[in-house]
């Protein structure tokens, strides 16, 4: 039966792709450079010609949208991206931190859930403070009577997990159907303690003032947040060396080096070390340019995965390439403005720098968030080029 052969072929393809990532994560040289583009859910929806807001509200439409991306773009991991910012539970909670813009994008306005005078409460018991002070400030439906609050919580909790499991189901089905590697993605999301304190507790503006006005509290708050971040990055099943806690790094490039050393790095290092001690690898999105902290990154546990946005790929390969696993750097801006040949040449250039010796997989410098922010033909050409030519 033809379909049985096809199923066999897909299985073989999946095993081959999975092996590429196993080799990379084991520090062995794979057969070729694996490809893991970050095509976001917004990209997938726009590419399929669907309404951005509508599909985010209705996961029944997701499969069709994801399937089109799977059919048209070459990738070793499933290009169908998880929707971290599902609008449903945010809406049910009356969220102020994530709201849908007029264009249908879920975005993050600058807000803060913790006042500067409340640091001591957070430091004394971060989780109590989150439940009692921070969440009600960020989520208007939680700033209600206990009865209303528990109803809102119940609805949002159910919506969150219903949507999550439904999406995982669709993604898992496509992973098997198209023979993608289940490895090479992310399984959990956690944050550097400083970023956790900065992003939604104190806000970008709040934290930059705090660093000057009450530095000791900031330091203590990061220490207090650390156990929560460790717990959040640890899976409920025994960790695998092929899994990963995703840690998108945020604030470091925007603060002074002396603040980085004192406030950002110590608890971040403890987080990655602590996860590694449990057998859980970390996958960092190294946002913006970290070249001035490259020697710090070296100090992280061996085989930490680092997805770079900007910086010098040569320097990164030279300093980190033997110890850590690298991806990213490919400037998606070029996919919009460059010719097909220029785009392919850029991929070749990066592969020539980053691939030797292994510990590298191909990826872009950031997620592709809209279909019109790239020339789709260039995107296809680059992915095809890498998958067909980047052999060891």
């Amino acid at each position: 039966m033809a379909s049985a052969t096809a199923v066999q072929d897909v299985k073989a393809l999946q095993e081959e792709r999975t092996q590429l990532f196993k080799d990379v994560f084991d520090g062995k040289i794979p057969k070729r450079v694996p490809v893991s583009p970050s095509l976001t859910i917004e990209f997938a929806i726009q590419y399929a010609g669907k309404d951005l807001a509508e599909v985010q509200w209705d996961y029944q439409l997701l499969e069709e949208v994801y399937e089109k991306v799977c059919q048209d773009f070459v990738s070793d991991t499933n290009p169908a991206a998880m929707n971290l910012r599902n609008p449903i539970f945010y809406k049910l909670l009356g969220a102020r931190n994530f709201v849908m813009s007029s264009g249908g994008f879920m975005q993050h306005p600058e807000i803060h859930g913790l006042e500067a005078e409340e640091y001591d409460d957070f430091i004394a018991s971060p989780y109590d403070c989150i439940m009692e002070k921070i969440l009600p400030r960020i989520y208007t439906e939680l700033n209600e009577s206990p009865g209303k609050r528990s109803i809102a919580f119940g609805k949002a909790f159910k919506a969150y997990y219903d949507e999550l499991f439904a999406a995982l189901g669709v993604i898992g089905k496509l992973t098997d159907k198209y023979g993608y590697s289940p490895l090479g993605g992310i399984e959990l999301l956690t944050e550097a303690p400083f970023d956790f304190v900065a992003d939604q507790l104190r806000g970008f503006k709040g934290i930059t003032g705090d660093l000057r006005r009450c530095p000791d509290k900031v330091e203590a708050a990061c220490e207090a947040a650390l156990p929560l971040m460790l717990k959040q990055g640890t899976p409920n099943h025994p960790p695998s060396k092929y899994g990963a806690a995703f840690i998108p790094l945020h604030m470091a490039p925007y603060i002074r080096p002396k603040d980085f050393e004192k406030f950002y790095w110590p608890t971040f290092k403890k987080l990655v070390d602590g996860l590694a001690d449990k057998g859980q690898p970390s996958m960092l999105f190294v946002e913006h340019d970290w070249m001035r902290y490259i020697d710090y990154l070296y100090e992280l546990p061996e085989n930490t995965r680092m997805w770079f946005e900007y910086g010098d790929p040569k320097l990164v390969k030279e300093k980190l390439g033997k110890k850590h696993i690298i991806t990213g750097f490919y400037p998606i801006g070029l996919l919009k403005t460059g010719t097909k040949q220029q785009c392919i040449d850029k991929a070749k250039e990066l592969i020539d720098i980053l691939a030797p010796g292994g510990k590298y997989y191909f990826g872009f410098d950031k997620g592709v968030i809209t279909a019109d922010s790239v020339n789709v033909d260039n995107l296809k050409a680059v992915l095809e080029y890498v998958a067909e030519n980047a052999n060891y």
Partner: protein
Amino acid sequence: MSELAMDLNMLTEAVGELDEDKVLEMLKEFVESNPTEEEAEKVVNACQQGMAIVGDLFDKGEYFVGDLIFAGELLTSAIDTLKPVIGSGTTEKVGSIVLATVEGDLHDIGKNIFKSMAEAAGFEVYDLGIDQPAAAFVEKIKEVKPQIVGMSGVLTLAIDSMKNIIDELKKEGLKDDVKIIIGGNPVTQEACEHVGADAFTTNAAEGIKICQGWMM
């Protein structure tokens, strides 16, 4: 009062160093000394010079985005402190700016830094907020007739939005009456030409300098 009750250079330096306690303490003492409006203007000027130092240090890589945010905040509290002694009608605005984060983008940190620096530099700023479509720009421009229009955005999609807005301004015949500056993470020389803006910047302090240049 015949002599200014403060050392202006020291104030400029303290602003440049972002020494909040020192700056606010100096300004409080100054306000208590019952100064004339003319003296107050010299003090505002010293603060503005301090901001120029901040901009330079940012250019040199000694200050970071976090410092710019803090600088914006410091300036706002400095001007607030000085309000009682700055004459209400006397301070001539150097120009006016209609400012917003463009449609599809809700990020406002960069816009707000630019806003506080522009206000501190003596501009009248009309801040439309975030996620603003062409129609909102058109309406405000017709109403207040600014010399400058500022558009901000962090997402790559903001570029397309900026282009739409500028195209709309052209259609409405408003483009030639204003200078347009775009700012934010995704803006580049290429993007600036593509959207048809007059200038671009990823550095708010530099953006202010560009605007000041236009007003000369």
